[in-house]
Protein backbone atom coordinates (compact mmCIF):
# COMPACT_ATOMS: atom_id res chain seq x y z
CA UNK A 1 0.00 0.00 0.00
CA UNK A 2 2.68 2.46 1.00
CA UNK A 3 4.76 1.37 -1.97
CA UNK A 4 1.85 2.30 -4.18
CA UNK A 5 1.59 5.65 -2.43
CA UNK A 6 5.31 6.23 -2.87
CA UNK A 7 5.03 5.29 -6.52
CA UNK A 8 2.44 7.96 -7.14
CA UNK A 9 3.84 10.67 -4.90
CA UNK A 10 7.12 10.38 -6.78
CA UNK A 11 5.40 10.59 -10.15
CA UNK A 12 2.78 13.17 -9.19
CA UNK A 13 4.88 15.41 -6.97
CA UNK A 14 2.12 17.41 -5.32
CA UNK A 15 1.97 17.37 -1.55
CA UNK A 16 -1.16 15.85 0.01
CA UNK A 17 -1.82 19.15 1.79
CA UNK A 18 -1.83 21.03 -1.51
CA UNK A 19 -4.09 18.40 -2.98
CA UNK A 20 -6.51 18.67 -0.09
CA UNK A 21 -6.50 22.42 -0.29
CA UNK A 22 -7.18 22.36 -4.01
CA UNK A 23 -10.08 19.91 -3.88
CA UNK A 24 -11.64 20.55 -0.51
CA UNK A 25 -12.81 24.11 -0.45
CA UNK A 26 -14.93 25.26 2.47
CA UNK A 27 -18.54 25.51 1.32
CA UNK A 28 -20.74 28.18 2.94
CA UNK A 29 -23.74 26.80 4.77
CA UNK A 30 -26.31 28.32 2.47
CA UNK A 31 -25.25 25.85 -0.22
CA UNK A 32 -27.11 23.21 1.71
CA UNK A 33 -30.11 24.72 0.00
CA UNK A 34 -30.75 23.15 -3.38
CA UNK A 35 -31.59 26.46 -4.97
CA UNK A 36 -28.06 27.71 -4.37
CA UNK A 37 -26.28 24.60 -5.56
CA UNK A 38 -28.10 24.51 -8.89
CA UNK A 39 -25.02 25.14 -10.98
CA UNK A 40 -23.95 21.55 -10.39
CA UNK A 41 -27.04 20.19 -12.13
CA UNK A 42 -26.31 21.43 -15.67
CA UNK A 43 -22.67 20.47 -15.18
CA UNK A 44 -23.74 16.93 -14.38
CA UNK A 45 -26.20 16.86 -17.28
CA UNK A 46 -23.46 18.11 -19.59
CA UNK A 47 -21.48 14.95 -18.88
CA UNK A 48 -24.51 12.79 -19.70
CA UNK A 49 -24.93 14.75 -22.94
CA UNK A 50 -21.33 14.15 -23.94
CA UNK A 51 -21.51 10.42 -23.23
CA UNK A 52 -24.87 9.84 -24.95
CA UNK A 53 -23.92 12.25 -27.74
CA UNK A 54 -20.77 10.29 -28.56
CA UNK A 55 -22.86 7.11 -28.63
CA UNK A 56 -25.44 8.70 -30.96
CA UNK A 57 -22.69 9.95 -33.24
CA UNK A 58 -21.63 6.33 -33.86
CA UNK A 59 -24.76 5.74 -35.95
CA UNK A 60 -25.93 9.21 -36.91
CA UNK A 61 -25.25 10.20 -40.55
CA UNK A 62 -25.70 13.85 -41.43
CA UNK A 63 -27.12 14.66 -44.86
CA UNK A 64 -30.63 15.03 -46.22
CA UNK A 65 -30.77 11.53 -47.66
CA UNK A 66 -29.42 9.77 -44.59
CA UNK A 67 -30.08 11.78 -41.42
CA UNK A 68 -33.70 10.88 -40.87
CA UNK A 69 -33.17 7.22 -41.66
CA UNK A 70 -30.19 7.01 -39.33
CA UNK A 71 -32.10 8.56 -36.43
CA UNK A 72 -34.95 6.16 -37.16
CA UNK A 73 -32.43 3.33 -37.16
CA UNK A 74 -31.11 4.47 -33.77
CA UNK A 75 -34.61 4.79 -32.37
CA UNK A 76 -36.12 1.60 -33.71
CA UNK A 77 -33.37 -0.88 -34.41
CA UNK A 78 -30.16 -0.43 -32.47
CA UNK A 79 -30.23 -2.12 -29.05
CA UNK A 80 -31.07 0.54 -26.45
CA UNK A 81 -30.84 3.20 -29.15
CA UNK A 82 -34.19 4.59 -27.98
CA UNK A 83 -32.83 4.83 -24.44
CA UNK A 84 -29.60 6.59 -25.42
CA UNK A 85 -31.46 8.99 -27.68
CA UNK A 86 -34.16 9.71 -25.11
CA UNK A 87 -31.56 10.33 -22.41
CA UNK A 88 -29.81 12.76 -24.74
CA UNK A 89 -32.99 14.55 -25.52
CA UNK A 90 -34.33 14.75 -21.97
CA UNK A 91 -30.95 15.81 -20.62
CA UNK A 92 -30.95 18.62 -23.18
CA UNK A 93 -34.34 19.81 -21.93
CA UNK A 94 -33.29 19.57 -18.30
CA UNK A 95 -30.01 21.23 -19.07
CA UNK A 96 -31.70 24.27 -20.58
CA UNK A 97 -34.08 24.41 -17.61
CA UNK A 98 -31.20 23.95 -15.15
CA UNK A 99 -29.11 26.70 -16.71
CA UNK A 100 -32.07 29.08 -16.65
CA UNK A 101 -32.91 28.31 -12.99
CA UNK A 102 -29.27 28.66 -11.98
CA UNK A 103 -29.11 31.99 -13.74
CA UNK A 104 -32.31 33.20 -12.08
CA UNK A 105 -30.85 32.34 -8.69
CA UNK A 106 -27.66 34.25 -9.47
CA UNK A 107 -29.60 37.22 -10.77
CA UNK A 108 -32.09 37.58 -7.93
CA UNK A 109 -29.51 37.13 -5.22
CA UNK A 110 -27.25 39.71 -6.84
CA UNK A 111 -24.43 37.17 -6.90
CA UNK A 112 -23.10 38.62 -10.16
CA UNK A 113 -22.05 41.88 -8.47
CA UNK A 114 -18.50 43.05 -8.07
CA UNK A 115 -16.07 41.28 -8.22
CA UNK A 116 -17.95 38.54 -10.11
CA UNK A 117 -19.04 40.45 -13.21
CA UNK A 118 -16.81 38.49 -15.57
CA UNK A 119 -18.17 35.19 -14.35
CA UNK A 120 -21.70 36.33 -15.13
CA UNK A 121 -20.56 37.05 -18.70
CA UNK A 122 -18.99 33.59 -18.95
CA UNK A 123 -22.32 32.26 -17.68
CA UNK A 124 -24.17 34.13 -20.42
CA UNK A 125 -21.79 32.47 -22.89
CA UNK A 126 -22.76 29.11 -21.44
CA UNK A 127 -26.46 29.92 -21.72
CA UNK A 128 -26.13 30.94 -25.36
CA UNK A 129 -24.04 27.89 -26.26
CA UNK A 130 -26.54 25.62 -24.51
CA UNK A 131 -29.35 27.16 -26.57
CA UNK A 132 -27.33 26.87 -29.78
CA UNK A 133 -26.58 23.25 -28.86
CA UNK A 134 -30.25 22.52 -28.30
CA UNK A 135 -31.26 24.17 -31.54
CA UNK A 136 -28.64 22.53 -33.75
CA UNK A 137 -29.31 19.15 -32.15
CA UNK A 138 -32.98 19.46 -32.90
CA UNK A 139 -32.13 20.27 -36.53
CA UNK A 140 -30.12 17.09 -36.93
CA UNK A 141 -33.13 14.79 -36.91
CA UNK A 142 -34.32 16.22 -40.27
CA UNK A 143 -37.96 16.12 -39.34
CA UNK A 144 -40.38 18.69 -40.66
CA UNK A 145 -39.94 20.89 -37.60
CA UNK A 146 -36.15 20.50 -37.69
CA UNK A 147 -36.10 21.59 -41.30
CA UNK A 148 -38.37 24.61 -40.97
CA UNK A 149 -36.74 25.63 -37.71
CA UNK A 150 -33.36 25.67 -39.42
CA UNK A 151 -34.78 27.60 -42.36
CA UNK A 152 -36.25 30.25 -40.09
CA UNK A 153 -33.04 30.46 -38.05
CA UNK A 154 -30.92 31.03 -41.13
CA UNK A 155 -33.25 33.81 -42.18
CA UNK A 156 -33.00 35.28 -38.72
CA UNK A 157 -29.26 35.52 -39.39
CA UNK A 158 -30.12 37.03 -42.77
CA UNK A 159 -32.11 39.83 -41.12
CA UNK A 160 -29.01 41.22 -39.44
CA UNK A 161 -28.06 44.34 -41.38
CA UNK A 162 -24.84 44.26 -43.47
CA UNK A 163 -23.44 40.93 -42.22
CA UNK A 164 -26.68 38.98 -42.54
CA UNK A 165 -26.27 37.50 -46.00
CA UNK A 166 -22.76 36.34 -45.23
CA UNK A 167 -23.85 34.74 -41.95
CA UNK A 168 -26.71 32.94 -43.62
CA UNK A 169 -24.55 31.51 -46.38
CA UNK A 170 -21.89 30.44 -43.89
CA UNK A 171 -24.51 28.69 -41.80
CA UNK A 172 -26.32 26.94 -44.63
CA UNK A 173 -23.33 26.39 -46.93
CA UNK A 174 -25.39 27.97 -49.71
CA UNK A 175 -28.27 30.30 -50.51
CA UNK A 176 -30.77 27.94 -49.01
CA UNK A 177 -30.90 24.61 -47.23
CA UNK A 178 -28.90 22.12 -49.31
CA UNK A 179 -27.05 18.83 -49.08
CA UNK A 180 -24.11 20.36 -47.18
CA UNK A 181 -26.22 22.11 -44.57
CA UNK A 182 -26.66 19.26 -42.12
CA UNK A 183 -22.91 18.56 -41.92
CA UNK A 184 -22.41 22.11 -40.73
CA UNK A 185 -25.11 21.79 -38.13
CA UNK A 186 -23.58 18.53 -36.99
CA UNK A 187 -20.13 20.06 -36.65
CA UNK A 188 -21.52 23.00 -34.69
CA UNK A 189 -23.58 20.69 -32.52
CA UNK A 190 -21.17 17.87 -31.80
CA UNK A 191 -17.76 19.55 -32.04
CA UNK A 192 -17.83 23.33 -31.80
CA UNK A 193 -20.37 23.86 -29.02
CA UNK A 194 -19.14 21.08 -26.72
CA UNK A 195 -15.54 22.31 -27.03
CA UNK A 196 -16.56 25.87 -26.41
CA UNK A 197 -18.67 24.80 -23.46
CA UNK A 198 -15.85 22.81 -21.89
CA UNK A 199 -13.60 25.87 -22.13
CA UNK A 200 -16.27 28.14 -20.68
CA UNK A 201 -17.08 25.66 -17.91
CA UNK A 202 -13.42 25.42 -16.88
CA UNK A 203 -13.19 29.22 -16.73
CA UNK A 204 -16.53 29.44 -14.93
CA UNK A 205 -15.54 26.99 -12.23
CA UNK A 206 -12.04 28.44 -11.92
CA UNK A 207 -13.61 31.85 -11.28
CA UNK A 208 -15.95 30.37 -8.69
CA UNK A 209 -12.95 28.84 -6.93
CA UNK A 210 -10.95 32.06 -7.05
CA UNK A 211 -13.69 34.24 -5.58
CA UNK A 212 -15.57 31.63 -3.61
CA UNK A 213 -19.33 31.83 -3.89
CA UNK A 214 -21.17 34.89 -2.59
CA UNK A 215 -22.01 34.18 1.02
CA UNK A 216 -25.48 34.45 2.43
CA UNK A 217 -26.59 33.75 5.94
CA UNK A 218 -30.17 32.84 6.57
CA UNK A 219 -31.89 33.69 9.84
CA UNK A 220 -32.87 30.07 10.40
CA UNK A 221 -29.27 28.89 10.07
CA UNK A 222 -28.38 28.24 13.70
CA UNK A 223 -25.22 26.21 13.22
CA UNK A 224 -22.11 27.52 14.92
CA UNK A 225 -19.82 27.06 11.96
CA UNK A 226 -20.27 28.99 8.75
CA UNK A 227 -18.81 26.40 6.41
CA UNK A 228 -18.87 22.72 5.64
CA UNK A 229 -16.54 20.53 3.62
CA UNK A 230 -16.74 20.10 -0.13
CA UNK A 231 -15.31 16.61 0.27
CA UNK A 232 -17.11 14.55 1.31
CA UNK A 233 -20.23 16.49 2.37
CA UNK A 234 -21.04 18.49 -0.71
CA UNK A 235 -19.78 15.74 -2.97
CA UNK A 236 -22.28 13.33 -1.43
CA UNK A 237 -25.12 15.79 -1.98
CA UNK A 238 -24.12 16.04 -5.62
CA UNK A 239 -24.04 12.27 -5.90
CA UNK A 240 -27.58 12.14 -4.56
CA UNK A 241 -28.66 14.78 -7.10
CA UNK A 242 -26.92 12.75 -9.82
CA UNK A 243 -28.79 9.59 -8.85
CA UNK A 244 -32.12 11.43 -8.69
CA UNK A 245 -31.53 12.89 -12.14
CA UNK A 246 -30.62 9.48 -13.54
CA UNK A 247 -33.88 8.07 -12.14
CA UNK A 248 -35.97 10.94 -13.47
CA UNK A 249 -34.29 10.89 -16.90
CA UNK A 250 -34.69 7.14 -17.24
CA UNK A 251 -38.32 7.28 -16.16
CA UNK A 252 -38.99 9.97 -18.76
CA UNK A 253 -37.09 7.99 -21.39
CA UNK A 254 -39.42 5.05 -20.79
CA UNK A 255 -42.64 7.00 -20.34
CA UNK A 256 -42.08 9.66 -23.00
CA UNK A 257 -39.32 8.41 -25.31
CA UNK A 258 -37.91 10.58 -28.08
CA UNK A 259 -40.04 10.07 -31.15
CA UNK A 260 -39.83 10.80 -34.87
CA UNK A 261 -42.00 13.42 -36.49
CA UNK A 262 -42.70 13.29 -40.22
CA UNK A 263 -39.61 13.60 -42.42
CA UNK A 264 -38.63 17.04 -43.71
CA UNK A 265 -40.48 18.19 -46.82
CA UNK A 266 -38.93 21.31 -48.32
CA UNK A 267 -42.13 21.91 -50.31
CA UNK A 268 -44.62 22.09 -47.46
CA UNK A 269 -44.43 23.87 -44.16
CA UNK A 270 -46.66 22.12 -41.60
CA UNK A 271 -49.78 24.08 -40.80
CA UNK A 272 -48.91 24.28 -37.14
CA UNK A 273 -45.27 24.84 -36.47
CA UNK A 274 -43.60 25.29 -33.07
CA UNK A 275 -39.99 25.24 -31.95
CA UNK A 276 -38.81 23.70 -28.66
CA UNK A 277 -40.43 25.36 -25.63
CA UNK A 278 -37.34 27.44 -24.82
CA UNK A 279 -37.62 29.24 -28.14
CA UNK A 280 -41.33 30.07 -27.77
CA UNK A 281 -40.37 33.57 -26.60
CA UNK A 282 -38.32 34.41 -29.66
CA UNK A 283 -40.86 32.70 -31.92
CA UNK A 284 -43.66 34.90 -30.56
CA UNK A 285 -41.39 37.96 -30.75
CA UNK A 286 -40.86 37.28 -34.46
CA UNK A 287 -44.62 37.28 -34.99
CA UNK A 288 -44.99 40.62 -33.26
CA UNK A 289 -42.47 42.73 -35.14
CA UNK A 290 -41.04 43.05 -38.63
CA UNK A 291 -38.01 40.82 -39.16
CA UNK A 292 -35.14 43.26 -38.71
CA UNK A 293 -36.71 45.01 -35.73
CA UNK A 294 -37.44 41.68 -34.05
CA UNK A 295 -33.97 40.26 -34.61
CA UNK A 296 -32.05 43.39 -33.63
CA UNK A 297 -34.14 43.98 -30.52
CA UNK A 298 -33.65 40.39 -29.42
CA UNK A 299 -29.91 40.67 -29.92
CA UNK A 300 -29.87 43.95 -28.03
CA UNK A 301 -31.76 42.51 -25.06
CA UNK A 302 -29.37 39.57 -24.83
CA UNK A 303 -26.45 42.01 -25.07
CA UNK A 304 -27.91 44.14 -22.23
CA UNK A 305 -28.14 41.05 -20.06
CA UNK A 306 -24.59 40.17 -20.94
CA UNK A 307 -23.53 43.60 -19.67
CA UNK A 308 -26.01 43.67 -16.80
CA UNK A 309 -23.45 43.50 -13.95
CA UNK A 310 -21.78 46.64 -15.32
CA UNK A 311 -25.09 48.43 -15.82
CA UNK A 312 -26.18 47.43 -12.33
CA UNK A 313 -22.83 48.67 -11.03
CA UNK A 314 -23.41 52.09 -12.59
CA UNK A 315 -26.93 52.29 -11.20
CA UNK A 316 -25.73 51.38 -7.72
CA UNK A 317 -22.87 53.84 -7.86
CA UNK A 318 -25.38 56.59 -8.56
CA UNK A 319 -28.04 55.31 -6.13
CA UNK A 320 -26.29 53.13 -3.56
CA UNK A 321 -28.31 50.19 -2.37
CA UNK A 322 -30.68 50.48 -5.31
CA UNK A 323 -32.64 47.35 -6.01
CA UNK A 324 -33.46 48.34 -9.58
CA UNK A 325 -32.23 44.93 -10.68
CA UNK A 326 -35.15 43.29 -8.88
CA UNK A 327 -37.64 45.26 -10.97
CA UNK A 328 -35.75 44.74 -14.19
CA UNK A 329 -35.51 41.03 -13.43
CA UNK A 330 -39.16 40.69 -12.45
CA UNK A 331 -40.38 42.51 -15.56
CA UNK A 332 -38.12 40.41 -17.82
CA UNK A 333 -39.14 37.11 -16.26
CA UNK A 334 -42.85 37.95 -16.36
CA UNK A 335 -42.59 39.07 -19.99
CA UNK A 336 -40.78 35.88 -20.96
CA UNK A 337 -43.34 33.74 -19.13
CA UNK A 338 -46.23 35.66 -20.69
CA UNK A 339 -44.88 35.32 -24.25
CA UNK A 340 -44.08 31.64 -23.68
CA UNK A 341 -47.56 30.87 -22.37
CA UNK A 342 -49.14 32.85 -25.19
CA UNK A 343 -47.20 30.85 -27.77
CA UNK A 344 -48.02 27.61 -25.97
CA UNK A 345 -51.78 28.05 -25.92
CA UNK A 346 -52.48 29.20 -29.49
CA UNK A 347 -51.98 27.30 -32.74
CA UNK A 348 -50.85 30.36 -34.66
Amino acid at each position, binding site marked *: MSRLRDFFSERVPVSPE*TMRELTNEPVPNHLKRWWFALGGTPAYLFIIMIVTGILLACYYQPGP*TTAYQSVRYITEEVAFGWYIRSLHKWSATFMVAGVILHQLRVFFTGAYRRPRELNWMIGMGLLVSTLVGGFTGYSLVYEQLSFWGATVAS*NIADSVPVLGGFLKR*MLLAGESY*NQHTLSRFFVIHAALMPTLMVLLLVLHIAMVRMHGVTEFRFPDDTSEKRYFNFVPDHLFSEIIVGLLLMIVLSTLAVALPAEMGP*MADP*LTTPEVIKPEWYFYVSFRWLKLFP*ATVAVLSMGFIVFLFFLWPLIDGLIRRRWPGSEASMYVGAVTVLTIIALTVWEAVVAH
Partner: protein
Amino acid sequence: MAGKIGSEPDREDRDDKTPGSSAEPSRRDALGMALNTGVALSLGASYGVLGGYAVTYLYPTQRQQKAWLFVSQVSAIASGGQLKFQAPSGAAIAVARIAEGSSAESFIALSSTCPHMGCQVYWESAKQRFFCPCHNGVFNAHGEGIEGPPKGQNLAHYPVKVENGLLFIEVPTESLPTERKRMASAASCGCDKRKLPVLQNEPQCQTEDDHEQA
Protein backbone atom coordinates in the same frame (compact mmCIF):
# COMPACT_ATOMS: atom_id res chain seq x y z
CA MET B 1 -1.38 29.84 -3.55
CA ALA B 2 -0.56 26.21 -4.03
CA GLY B 3 3.13 27.05 -3.70
CA LYS B 4 6.04 25.56 -5.52
CA ILE B 5 5.42 22.28 -7.25
CA GLY B 6 8.27 19.83 -6.71
CA SER B 7 11.70 21.46 -6.37
CA GLU B 8 12.12 24.30 -8.81
CA PRO B 9 15.53 25.96 -9.18
CA ASP B 10 15.80 29.55 -7.97
CA ARG B 11 15.42 32.53 -10.27
CA GLU B 12 19.09 33.43 -9.95
CA ASP B 13 20.00 30.03 -11.23
CA ARG B 14 18.48 30.64 -14.65
CA ASP B 15 20.49 31.48 -17.72
CA ASP B 16 18.59 34.52 -18.92
CA LYS B 17 19.06 34.67 -22.66
CA THR B 18 15.95 36.59 -23.61
CA PRO B 19 17.18 39.84 -25.14
CA GLY B 20 16.04 42.96 -23.41
CA SER B 21 15.42 41.30 -20.07
CA SER B 22 18.91 41.88 -18.64
CA ALA B 23 19.78 44.96 -16.65
CA GLU B 24 21.80 46.88 -19.21
CA PRO B 25 20.25 46.80 -22.67
CA SER B 26 22.67 46.66 -25.58
CA ARG B 27 22.42 47.06 -29.35
CA ARG B 28 22.50 43.28 -29.68
CA ASP B 29 19.55 43.08 -27.35
CA ALA B 30 17.56 45.51 -29.44
CA LEU B 31 18.32 43.49 -32.56
CA GLY B 32 17.36 40.28 -30.83
CA MET B 33 14.08 41.83 -29.65
CA ALA B 34 13.28 42.94 -33.16
CA LEU B 35 14.01 39.48 -34.47
CA ASN B 36 11.85 37.78 -31.87
CA THR B 37 9.01 40.17 -32.50
CA GLY B 38 9.36 39.55 -36.22
CA VAL B 39 9.15 35.78 -35.74
CA ALA B 40 6.12 36.10 -33.47
CA LEU B 41 4.38 38.43 -35.93
CA SER B 42 5.12 36.06 -38.80
CA LEU B 43 3.56 33.21 -36.87
CA GLY B 44 0.54 35.43 -36.27
CA ALA B 45 0.42 36.30 -39.95
CA SER B 46 0.58 32.65 -41.01
CA TYR B 47 -2.32 31.84 -38.67
CA GLY B 48 -4.14 34.82 -40.13
CA VAL B 49 -3.65 33.44 -43.64
CA LEU B 50 -4.88 30.05 -42.48
CA GLY B 51 -7.93 31.76 -40.96
CA GLY B 52 -8.59 33.58 -44.23
CA TYR B 53 -8.32 30.35 -46.18
CA ALA B 54 -10.66 28.67 -43.71
CA VAL B 55 -13.31 31.31 -44.29
CA THR B 56 -12.89 31.00 -48.05
CA TYR B 57 -13.11 27.22 -47.69
CA LEU B 58 -16.33 27.47 -45.74
CA TYR B 59 -17.92 30.17 -47.86
CA PRO B 60 -20.17 28.59 -50.46
CA THR B 61 -19.26 29.54 -54.01
CA GLN B 62 -21.72 27.50 -55.97
CA ARG B 63 -24.68 29.62 -56.92
CA GLN B 64 -28.02 27.96 -57.10
CA GLN B 65 -28.36 26.23 -60.48
CA LYS B 66 -31.26 27.59 -62.47
CA ALA B 67 -32.61 26.93 -65.93
CA TRP B 68 -35.26 28.21 -68.29
CA LEU B 69 -37.87 25.52 -68.70
CA PHE B 70 -40.73 25.29 -71.17
CA VAL B 71 -44.19 25.77 -69.63
CA SER B 72 -46.70 25.75 -72.47
CA GLN B 73 -47.80 27.55 -75.58
CA VAL B 74 -48.98 31.03 -74.84
CA SER B 75 -52.24 30.32 -76.60
CA ALA B 76 -52.97 27.39 -74.31
CA ILE B 77 -53.66 29.62 -71.32
CA ALA B 78 -56.71 31.83 -71.60
CA SER B 79 -56.61 35.30 -70.13
CA GLY B 80 -57.60 35.00 -66.48
CA GLY B 81 -56.79 31.32 -66.54
CA GLN B 82 -53.93 29.47 -64.93
CA LEU B 83 -51.91 26.32 -65.18
CA LYS B 84 -49.96 24.24 -62.69
CA PHE B 85 -46.33 23.83 -63.64
CA GLN B 86 -44.34 21.05 -62.01
CA ALA B 87 -40.82 22.32 -61.25
CA PRO B 88 -37.86 19.92 -60.98
CA SER B 89 -37.96 20.40 -57.20
CA GLY B 90 -41.43 18.86 -57.26
CA ALA B 91 -43.06 22.18 -56.38
CA ALA B 92 -46.32 22.99 -58.18
CA ILE B 93 -46.09 26.54 -59.46
CA ALA B 94 -49.26 28.31 -60.52
CA VAL B 95 -48.60 30.19 -63.75
CA ALA B 96 -51.42 32.68 -64.33
CA ARG B 97 -52.28 34.78 -67.34
CA ILE B 98 -53.39 38.14 -66.05
CA ALA B 99 -53.88 39.98 -69.34
CA GLU B 100 -54.72 39.48 -72.99
CA GLY B 101 -51.29 40.40 -74.29
CA SER B 102 -48.92 37.65 -75.30
CA SER B 103 -45.77 39.18 -73.86
CA ALA B 104 -44.12 37.99 -70.63
CA GLU B 105 -45.80 40.83 -68.71
CA SER B 106 -49.15 39.09 -69.12
CA PHE B 107 -48.02 36.12 -67.05
CA ILE B 108 -47.10 35.73 -63.40
CA ALA B 109 -45.76 32.75 -61.59
CA LEU B 110 -45.86 33.28 -57.83
CA SER B 111 -43.26 31.69 -55.61
CA SER B 112 -44.69 30.07 -52.48
CA THR B 113 -41.65 30.99 -50.40
CA CYS B 114 -42.54 33.54 -47.75
CA PRO B 115 -40.36 36.66 -47.99
CA HIS B 116 -40.27 36.88 -44.19
CA MET B 117 -38.28 33.84 -43.08
CA GLY B 118 -38.59 31.41 -45.95
CA CYS B 119 -41.46 29.12 -44.95
CA GLN B 120 -43.89 27.85 -47.60
CA VAL B 121 -47.22 29.66 -47.79
CA TYR B 122 -50.39 27.81 -48.72
CA TRP B 123 -53.58 28.95 -50.42
CA GLU B 124 -56.71 29.24 -48.29
CA SER B 125 -59.47 29.26 -50.85
CA ALA B 126 -62.22 30.04 -48.32
CA LYS B 127 -60.48 33.28 -47.42
CA GLN B 128 -58.98 33.86 -50.88
CA ARG B 129 -55.55 34.41 -49.41
CA PHE B 130 -52.13 32.83 -48.95
CA PHE B 131 -51.27 32.04 -45.36
CA CYS B 132 -47.81 31.47 -43.91
CA PRO B 133 -48.00 29.22 -40.86
CA CYS B 134 -44.63 30.26 -39.44
CA HIS B 135 -45.45 33.73 -38.16
CA ASN B 136 -48.97 34.26 -39.44
CA GLY B 137 -48.08 36.11 -42.64
CA VAL B 138 -51.03 36.83 -44.95
CA PHE B 139 -50.86 37.60 -48.69
CA ASN B 140 -53.69 38.44 -51.06
CA ALA B 141 -54.30 36.58 -54.29
CA HIS B 142 -51.71 38.74 -56.06
CA GLY B 143 -49.07 37.78 -53.52
CA GLU B 144 -48.99 41.14 -51.74
CA GLY B 145 -48.25 40.90 -48.01
CA ILE B 146 -51.22 42.39 -46.16
CA GLU B 147 -50.90 41.15 -42.58
CA GLY B 148 -48.33 39.85 -40.12
CA PRO B 149 -44.57 40.35 -40.25
CA PRO B 150 -44.30 40.16 -44.08
CA LYS B 151 -46.80 43.01 -44.44
CA GLY B 152 -45.59 45.23 -47.25
CA GLN B 153 -43.40 42.50 -48.75
CA ASN B 154 -44.58 40.47 -51.70
CA LEU B 155 -44.25 36.86 -52.69
CA ALA B 156 -41.50 36.68 -55.29
CA HIS B 157 -42.32 36.01 -58.94
CA TYR B 158 -40.42 33.44 -60.92
CA PRO B 159 -38.97 35.10 -64.01
CA VAL B 160 -40.98 34.20 -67.13
CA LYS B 161 -40.31 34.90 -70.80
CA VAL B 162 -42.08 34.36 -74.11
CA GLU B 163 -40.26 33.23 -77.23
CA ASN B 164 -42.00 32.39 -80.49
CA GLY B 165 -45.33 32.05 -78.73
CA LEU B 166 -43.88 29.68 -76.16
CA LEU B 167 -43.84 30.45 -72.44
CA PHE B 168 -40.72 29.70 -70.36
CA ILE B 169 -40.03 29.93 -66.64
CA GLU B 170 -36.73 30.15 -64.80
CA VAL B 171 -36.61 27.81 -61.83
CA PRO B 172 -33.94 26.12 -59.69
CA THR B 173 -32.93 22.77 -61.13
CA GLU B 174 -31.56 21.16 -58.04
CA SER B 175 -33.32 20.67 -54.81
CA LEU B 176 -33.44 18.59 -51.69
CA PRO B 177 -35.07 15.20 -51.77
CA THR B 178 -38.69 15.20 -50.76
CA GLU B 179 -41.11 12.51 -49.85
CA ARG B 180 -43.11 13.26 -52.99
CA LYS B 181 -40.16 13.05 -55.35
CA ARG B 182 -39.14 9.92 -53.57
CA MET B 183 -42.49 8.32 -54.30
CA ALA B 184 -42.41 9.58 -57.86
CA SER B 185 -38.97 8.20 -58.60
CA ALA B 186 -39.79 4.98 -56.76
CA ALA B 187 -42.71 4.55 -59.10
CA SER B 188 -40.68 5.46 -62.15
CA CYS B 189 -37.89 3.01 -61.51
CA GLY B 190 -40.00 0.37 -59.92
CA CYS B 191 -38.18 -0.17 -56.70
CA ASP B 192 -39.37 -0.48 -53.14
CA LYS B 193 -41.40 2.46 -51.93
CA ARG B 194 -39.46 2.52 -48.69
CA LYS B 195 -36.26 3.32 -50.48
CA LEU B 196 -34.28 6.42 -49.61
CA PRO B 197 -35.04 9.77 -51.13
CA VAL B 198 -32.59 10.79 -53.83
CA LEU B 199 -30.80 13.99 -54.46
CA GLN B 200 -30.95 15.92 -57.67
CA ASN B 201 -33.57 15.23 -60.20
CA GLU B 202 -32.58 12.05 -61.89
CA PRO B 203 -34.42 8.91 -60.86
CA GLN B 204 -31.96 6.74 -59.03
CA CYS B 205 -32.73 3.62 -57.14
CA GLN B 206 -31.34 3.17 -53.72
CA THR B 207 -32.85 0.69 -51.35
CA GLU B 208 -32.97 0.51 -47.60
CA ASP B 209 -30.36 -2.26 -47.76
CA ASP B 210 -27.98 -0.03 -49.67
CA HIS B 211 -28.26 2.39 -46.81
CA GLU B 212 -27.49 -0.10 -44.12
CA GLN B 213 -24.43 -1.33 -45.93
CA ALA B 214 -23.18 2.17 -46.47
